């Protein structure tokens, strides 16, 4: 019962009017930075960090944390409406979110994503509350061999993305892997394809590529098919007036998806470095392989939106575990939170929660309240956001270009990244025209460098022996789960329907 005592103490701190105000500000700022493509939570946090210098640490950390998980709510809005992921963790939400909007179901999709975010976030906080010490063991068991296997699991999503046009999909993925090789090679320190540019030392960041391929590519394509000539027509042409609230079937068909997405997202979020992006991709491919209708994924299936949404929010809660229990930041955003702790003279580490119970539990309690606030804001804001798709395309298009440009530039204030974004837009248009898979390219760009580095670290450690993957318990677990995902589940679901259907699914 100690936990409840701590939680009540935390709540009593979080609920003071001034802290609630900070929490509200954080939630709103988080939503806003999430909505702007490219301008993710870590950039938002870094800009607001200096503002918090004079503040009381508890209120400040509540506000900063709210920006972090609030961005997960906001990031999906543009994924659904404009096919432009607001930030990296919401790339997977474009797969079915945008098709849903095209079908005229933007309202239900936005409501479901807000609910899914709320469920994921709240389940994540509940798991932090009761299981933080246990999960800190999970984050301790991950070394390079496990990261490599995890990246391989993430690549299963690639197979899903590639789907039926496997040749085009494969080429797309290979382009992504090739782009992923740019930057200073971690092991030898040699620059690869950097051409002496300091801005390419760190490699090609995938945010400008994703914004260009998805956002601008879609936009150019819309011009190509002459959508701007339709005068009053919005980005999405409706056959009929669409309902705003999700149907009973939406709720019923996704209730287990939410549970699975929350747990999977949380566990992946706990692993430092894997984070919300991989969690959302894995949730998507898991859901597809468990679905009775895998062929509907990518065409506007509600479960295909709900799964990554619950997962990325649960993962953002999960990432608090290594931060609070070990002092290890699991992502760029939690690294800024860690820097904030150190600025206030706090010493993150295994003794942090014991030494600073008021701050730690105040933060955890505030996350319950923060998720409620965000759900409320989302539901009020959705009717406004839905209006976006009714704006005539000839007016909307220039605004999208400006937002994409500002968003990309704001991340690192880099002109090279801004040029890359426009180049990716042109490439994205042709990919769209000829049926290539921009999603496979972006995924390969994210996972390729991760897998390469982890594999080389693993083999350096084992002096070249692959047996290391079978010697470590955590590795064996991941291999086991992968086998279940790849072999057992599709096999089981194939038994439930005709063989012809299963062939089409392409898994």
């Amino acid at each position, binding site marked *: 019962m100690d936990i409840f005592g701590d939680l009540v103490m935390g709540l009593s701190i979080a609920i003071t009017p001034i802290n609630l105000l900070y929490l509200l500000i954080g939630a709103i700022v988080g939503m806003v930075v999430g909505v702007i493509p490219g301008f993710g939570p870590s950039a938002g946090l870094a800009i607001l960090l200096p503002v918090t210098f004079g503040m009381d640490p508890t209120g400040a950390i509540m506000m900063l944390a709210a920006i972090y998980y609030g961005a997960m709510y906001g990031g999906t809005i543009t994924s659904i409406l404009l096919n432009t992921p607001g930030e990296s963790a919401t790339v997977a939400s474009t797969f079915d979110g945008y098709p849903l909007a095209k079908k005229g179901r933007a309202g239900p999709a936005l409501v479901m994503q807000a609910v899914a975010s709320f469920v994921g976030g709240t389940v994540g906080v509940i798991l932090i509350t009761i299981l933080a010490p246990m999960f800190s063991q999970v984050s301790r068991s991950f070394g390079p061999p496990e990261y490599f296997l995890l990246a391989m699991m993430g690549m299963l999503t690639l197979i899903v993305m590639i789907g039926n046009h496997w040749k085009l999909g494969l080429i797309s993925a290979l382009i992504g892997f090739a782009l992923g090789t740019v930057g200073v090679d971690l092991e030898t320190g040699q620059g690869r394809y950097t051409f002496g540019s*300091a801005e390419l030392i760190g490699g090609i960041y995938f945010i400008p590529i994703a914004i260009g391929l998805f956002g601008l590519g879609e936009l150019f394509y819309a011009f190509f098919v002459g959508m701007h000539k339709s005068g009053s027509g919005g980005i999405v042409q409706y056959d009929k007036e669409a309902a705003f609230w999700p149907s009973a079937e939406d709720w019923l068909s996704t209730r287990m998806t939410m549970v699975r997405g929350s747990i999977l997202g949380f566990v992946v979020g706990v692993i430092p470095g894997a984070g919300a992006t991989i969690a959302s991709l894995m949730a998507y491919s898991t859901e597809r392989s468990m679905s009775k209708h895998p062929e509907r994924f990518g065409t506007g299936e509600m479960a295909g939106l709900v799964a990554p949404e619950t997962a990325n929010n649960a993962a953002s809660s999960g990432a608090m575990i290594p931060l609070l229990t070990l002092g290890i930041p699991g992502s760029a955003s939690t*690294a800024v939170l860690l820097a904030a702790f150190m600025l206030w003279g706090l010493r993150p580490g295994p003794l942090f929660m014991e030494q600073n119970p008021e701050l730690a539990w105040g933060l955890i309690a505030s996350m319950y309240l923060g998720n409620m606030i965000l759900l409320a804001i989302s539901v009020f804001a959705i009717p406004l956001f839905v209006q976006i798709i009714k704006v005539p395309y000839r007016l909307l298009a220039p605004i999208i270009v400006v937002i994409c440009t500002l968003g990309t530039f*704001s991340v690192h204030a880099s002109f090279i990244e801004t040029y890359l974004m426009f180049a990716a837009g042109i490439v994205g248009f042709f990919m769209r025209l000829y049926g290539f898979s921009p999603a496979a390219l972006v995924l390969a760009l994210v996972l390729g460098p991760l897998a390469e580095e982890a594999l080389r670290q693993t083999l350096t450690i084992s002096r070249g022996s692959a047996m290391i993957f079978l010697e470590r318990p955590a590795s064996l677990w991941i291999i086991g789960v992968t086998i279940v995902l790849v072999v057992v589940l599709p096999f089981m679901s194939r038994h439930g329907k005709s063989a012809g259907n299963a062939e089409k699914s392409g898994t």
Partner: protein
Amino acid sequence: MFNTSTTWLRNSLCATLIVAPVVLAAPAHAQSVYPSADETLDWTIAFGPGGGNDIMARTIIDILTKYDLYPGDISPENRAGGSGAVGWGHLFGQSGDPYGISTTSGSFVTTPLQADTPWQPADFTPVALLATDDLVLVVNGSSAIQNIEDFIAAANAGPMNIGGTGTVNVDFIVPTLFAEKAGFEFEYVSFNSMADQTTALLSDALDAMVGNPGEILGMIDSGDLRPLVYSGASTPDALGDVPTMGDLGFDIGVSMPRGLILAPNVPVETQEWWIATMRKVVDTPEWAEYIKTNTLTPTVIYGEEFRTFLTNTKDGFEKVLKSVGAID
């Protein structure tokens, strides 16, 4: 969304507004007293908010303001990008302007080695080296290795895996030089971040790693990590009785410089004014507190000696990195 756009616009506008009059008015500085209360000091922070460089710059600015050591306004600007290339490139472009200043960190030496930057560390006007970032070698708290003697003995029995962040970095150079002097071999495993390498060590994938004590002190306190040896001149209090590499007779003489620099080609009087001022800054209790919380080694040298230090550090890095083929 419009908040962010205006922030960027404002930043660049401010930069232009600040720099333009300074450049135009440059000849006037020779007659007037430095520093003039009418001039705004343009303080470049070559990294984003919250990083080590940012914290140091803002600490110095706080001290300058609190003790009224600088008469005019100070405008700190985070000009991040290209591992410092953007920010220090900006200061390089302010050549001859006595109101451009910046703080240095490890990338000040390593970035020019990796990329074609138009500037080299020795091009700038050196004010002072204030502290060095040194590294501690740690093993997992559950390891059988209790001290550095155990470690060297075990490393002689079979090469160890030692993790660090990056390759063109002290994390690689410090254990390489140490192993050379102490006579053992090891495999260096390069990671992208301290977080990745710490989890790798906790998961027993690595035998040991090097890191800045400030980032892992929490885990050292709790016994999850065991410190063995420190690369700086004197061990910080927080690490207890851990020996330095020098104590063992294996002094390597390499560390990351945290110092203060001015734009190239500024008047000698400006450099002297800043040296005198920094002498006061490092005597304040606030500075002592900063050194303590960030577990830095206070190593203070001024002026041209700092330039020599930078050149030596760069040459030392270049030699080691060329010998392993990391750079051409």
